[in-house]
């Protein structure tokens, strides 16, 4: 359904006009990130030239003295001064600066105080923020907030954990100022699922496509995100580094690692000093264990800017890959000092703590990550793992379930969930989980054998046999690894017994024969073979005695599974 939204052809000239206005408006309000984003988009359509009559650069309204003063203070990060001198200003820009500088001042102080202690600031000590919120609330009720101030109100609400309210406010803000990318971005973080997304009343603006793609990416809905990005790509934004980076992230989420790495390489080629999203690139390199590339990336990043969160993450990943976990933690901590809301660092730090067996710290980190973004499945998964260590299986189930819901097509989550169910002796649930994991591809390759064992436990002999057979087919050629070997001969043994019980002596013989190949069950294998030989003898004798009756019997045995249960009792090696 996003197809119909996208199909409207973009009018690049209008887009450019919008962009120029947007850049100016955002820059005048000190919204530098939005201005940067808009400027990047604008740069990517550098070929588009505006007709001369549209140039509207010299109708700038005269700025008031107070605004100019405040703006210069603002640029120098003297926020309190800025807010003081704009206190009585009524024009929208100065008013926004007044409020925004107050907000930034609060945030800056929080950060500054954090440098003394390593812990994140206590969220309950937020009196100043609450007061700012009260001021904004009052203005909001009087309808005195313009689009930018609404955005600020939303930010404050979000900080105060009033997310549903914040979502409404951001929607208002976007409807008033569709060119302010920051508001879109914040909204994207708050939209919990697709149904909510589709119920939002958003303006029909070209920015909406960027937003939708962003949201889909956030919601790990990579396919739809990629569709939109391809579309944007083809409509004139092919040079946009932003679109490229987003596509790379989408590939990353789809676990098409090589493609993602390619994209990032291209990206760095056209924009070598870019640090944005490099943390994801470093994750990719980490997963692929490309040590030299990662080292190279770390060096480049340090050269560009040592004190950027992305740089710190890249270095952290680098150290982690070299198994220097405490050093890695140090760098993630540095990243968090620079920006306590930086999601990747929290999650990665959690992983490092896990490596260092510091479960408490790991839990803290993961929880913080979830505070920042509830959709971080890695953090949920990590939490599940820590609680597994702490032997709190119910919590474990909850966390794995969260992770699984975020990544319904990832077999690792559901496998972990199944293992926990198994620990709780909820075999049916566990079995369902393993089954699903197998259906999803079973990345780690352990789901199948677990499934087979559970089938066995639940007396589903046919299913168990089927699963074991499949397992043997898959894993039969992989030898040497101790664990799999163990599983494999167990499988052979089971299958031999199974077929023996059902009188399928040929199959039984084949599997029993395989058993002999392994030292541990050589004896059992031999015993089985003996048994098979005995049976064969008996069978032949029976055949000779009464052919018609025994034929009947034989067909019964082979066709009817119910009989096999009975026969299991007689079998000597019923395991």
């Amino acid at each position, binding site marked *: 359904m996003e197809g119909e939204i996208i199909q409207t052809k973009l009018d690049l000239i209008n887009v450019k006009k919008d962009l120029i206005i947007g850049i100016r408006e955002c820059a005048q309000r000190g919204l530098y990130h939005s201005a940067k984003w808009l400027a990047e988009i604008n740069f990517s359509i550098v070929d588009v030239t505006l007709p001369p009559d549209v140039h509207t650069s010299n109708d700038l309204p005269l700025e008031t003295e107070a605004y100019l003063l405040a703006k210069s203070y603002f640029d120098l990060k003297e926020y309190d001064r800025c807010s003081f001198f704009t206190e009585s200003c009524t024009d929208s820009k100065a008013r926004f600066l007044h409020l925004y500088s107050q907000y930034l001042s609060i945030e800056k102080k929080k950060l500054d105080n954090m440098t003394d202690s390593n812990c994140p600031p206590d969220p309950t000590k937020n009196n100043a923020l609450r007061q700012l919120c*009260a001021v904004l609330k009052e203005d909001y009720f009087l309808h005195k907030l313009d689009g930018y101030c609404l955005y600020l109100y939303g930010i404050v609400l979000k900080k105060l954990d009033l997310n549903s309210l914040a979502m409404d406010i951001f929607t208002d803000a976007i409807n008033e100022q569709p060119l302010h990318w920051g508001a879109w971005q914040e909204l994207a973080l708050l939209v919990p699922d697709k149904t909510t997304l589709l119920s939002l009343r958003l303006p029909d603006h070209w920015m909406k496509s960027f937003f939708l793609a962003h949201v889909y990416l956030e919601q790990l809905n990579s396919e739809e995100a990629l569709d939109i990005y391809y579309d944007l790509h083809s409509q004139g934004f092919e040079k946009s580094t932003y679109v490229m980076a987003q596509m790379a992230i989408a590939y990353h989420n789809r676990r098409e690692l090589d493609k993602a790495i390619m994209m990032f390489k291209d990206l760095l080629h056209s924009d070598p000093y870019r640090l944005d999203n490099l943390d994801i690139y470093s994750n990719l390199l980490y997963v692929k264990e490309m040590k030299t590339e990662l080292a190279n990336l770390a060096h480049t990043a340090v050269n560009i800017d040592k004190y950027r969160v992305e740089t710190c993450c890249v270095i952290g990943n680098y150290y982690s890959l070299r198994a220097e976990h405490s050093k890695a933690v140090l760098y993630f901590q540095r990243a968090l000092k620079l920006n306590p809301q930086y999601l990747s660092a929290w999650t990665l730090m959690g992983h490092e703590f896990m490596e260092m067996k510091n479960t408490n710290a790991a839990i803290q980190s993961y929880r913080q990550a979830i505070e920042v973004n509830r959709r971080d499945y890695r953090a949920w998964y990590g939490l599940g793992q820590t609680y597994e260590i702490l032997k709190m299986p119910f919590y474990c189930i909850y966390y794995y379930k969260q992770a699984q819901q975020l990544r319904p097509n990832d077999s690792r989550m559901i496998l972990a*969930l199944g293992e926990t169910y198994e620990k709780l002796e909820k075999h049916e649930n566990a079995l369902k989980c393993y089954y699903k994991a197998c259906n999803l591809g079973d990345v780690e390759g352990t789901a199948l054998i677990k499934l087979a064992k559970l089938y066995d436990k639940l007396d589903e002999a046919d299913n168990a046999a*089927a699963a074991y057979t499949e397992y043997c087919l898959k894993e039969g050629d992989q030898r040497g690894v101790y664990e799999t070997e163990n599983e494999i001969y167990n499988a052979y043994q089971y299958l031999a017994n199974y077929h023996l019980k059902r009188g399928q002596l040929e199959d039984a013989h084949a599997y029993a024969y395989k058993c002999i190949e392994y030292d541990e069950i050589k004896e059992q294998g031999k015993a089985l073979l003996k048994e098979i030989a005995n049976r064969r003898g008996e069978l032949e004798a029976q055949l000779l005695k009464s052919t018609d009756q025994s034929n009947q019997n034989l067909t019964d045995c082979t066709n009817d599974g119910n009989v096999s249960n009975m026969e299991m009792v007689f079998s000597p090696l019923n395991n």
Partner: protein
Amino acid sequence: MAGDTDTEMKTVHTDNINIDNYRKLVQTYLNLHAYNTALFWADKVVALTSGNPRDIYWLAQCMFLLKQFHRAVHLLRSKNLDKTYILCNYLTVRCLLEANEFNEALKVLNSMDMEVFLQANTISSYNVSVEAGMFDDTPKYQVQSSVLLLKGRVLEAMDNRGLASDCYKQALQCDVYCFEAFDALTQHHMLSAAEEQELLSSLPISQQCTIEEAEVLYTLYKSKLKKYNTIVGIVPNKNKKLIFNNTPLQTSTVVIRKNFANVLDTTRDTSTTENTNISENEVNKNLDNKVAMDPSETSVQVRLQNSLDLVVSQAELYYYNCDYVQCSKLTEHILKQDPYHTSCLPIHISCQVELKRSDKLFTLAHNLVDLYPNLAISWFAVGCYYYVIGKRDSARKFLAKSTSLDRLFGPAWLAFGHSFAVENEHDQAMAAYFKASQLMKGCHLPLLYIGLECGLTNNVRLAERFFQQAQLIAPDDPFVMHEMGVIAFQNLEYKAAEKHFQDALARVKPIKDSIVPERWEPLLNNLGHTCRKLKKYEEALEYHHQASVLSPQSAGTYSAIGYVHALMNNTGEAVHWFHKALGLRRDDTFSTTMLNYVIEQLSIEQLPYPDAPDYIPTFELAATTGEDNTTHESESINAGRQISASDMSIEIDISDANTFIKE
């Protein structure tokens, strides 16, 4: 006063000395505050006139101003003037009062028969005291009023507050301009709000002044009345009730609040809903620039707004409506103009305590103690500073000093009580509050606090009784209503509790969508708890969510929401909210226990994954298709399991909601 020229008095013509000149000298030096010089010459005049009562009176006056109280008393009484001249009597009593000899003062007061004096005045027949009663042309009713006021003060100092308040009332009846009497009645909380109202309407204002003046006086006095039971949304109109009678009543609170700002330029536009951005700063500016405004454009009322007293009463109003930021802005503005505005200081200090601005309190207290070590308010400020920074012992020390300087200083007594209350010293706290309640008969706060302490010591019945008393005094105070609700809740009378809370909410939030001060978060939460008890879960959730909007990121609210969800069998939601609560307060045993329970429940009742089949799937060889989604979704296995409140004995602790009202 400067009635030196009256010649009715016998002047002794010595050779070439004009005694009137000396008398003039005395007056001049008195005006110049050169009391010693005045005393010297007054003494000579007395000598020259050989004891003219009027001259003796002035001599005593000089002594009084020199703080030689006993000397003055002795002078007046040795000449027996305190029995014959009303003004001399008055002065004697004044001196005795200053010298803290209350019994003596009362004796002297009673020795002069007021009735005779009054009759002498009214009948105006020949009587010595008629002439002698008054030296100057001070109007008799004012003298009478002053005497009554003085009597009131003496009685109050002797802890006879009932009689004292009668005296004040009489004084006010005699002279409606006698502000001191009115102030004593209101500031010392002698009357309840209703009684104050009654007093104001019973005053013979219209008889004693012109219509215009009457309006002014009425407005001014009204601004001094109690404000506990008033809501910003309704009351600020009082200040300009005469100016725009046509203010639309349905304007929202905020707009009305703004009216205050608009008062100054009302004549230009009365439409209060326009969207100009009037910040408080502008109000201040307007106030500053007021003088520059064209006087013809502003009425008397409007110009009177310039008086700081009226701004103080506005600040007080904000204070009682828990809008401390706004209040603090106003008081700071006042103190900028008049750094030691006495009636503003208590409000200002209390406000800073509420906002926990210890730095400001520190500076203020230092200044005050340096300048006015003899004022109770200075030490009150010091005590408050220590209270805010958590050093209760020191706080008590200085608050005690404050109360010893002025035993009638109610706020210090209350703060004294609070300093005990926060340390859970319930008995001591109650003792302090009792003292305060004796001093402030017309104020319900001490009773309210006593009730709270009773409640905290599990004496619910007693607590209820105190709250009822408090409610008698201030029937409209939402705080009292709230506490009544809490008591009802504790008595398991949830219906009644809900009603009380709803009443309180109606007072706090007169208009839908209006802004409720953050302070009222417990009220909403308690409403939520009550609704939960009444099994109105949806409503309970609604109230808790409102509370969390008022005061975001509160662990208590979150776990209450989680609890309601748990009772509604929204196990997933419950887990989410308990997690949030524990994120903010890790040692919350209630949430921990609940979370353990709920998360276990969740793992039982939820499917392993969203579209899990309800049967054991069969495994097909080499078939990796997952198209068995067609199976009908199974209902959760144990969905019917009911969590009853009884098997979870932990109850959300409502008592900590009680304490919020302190400080």
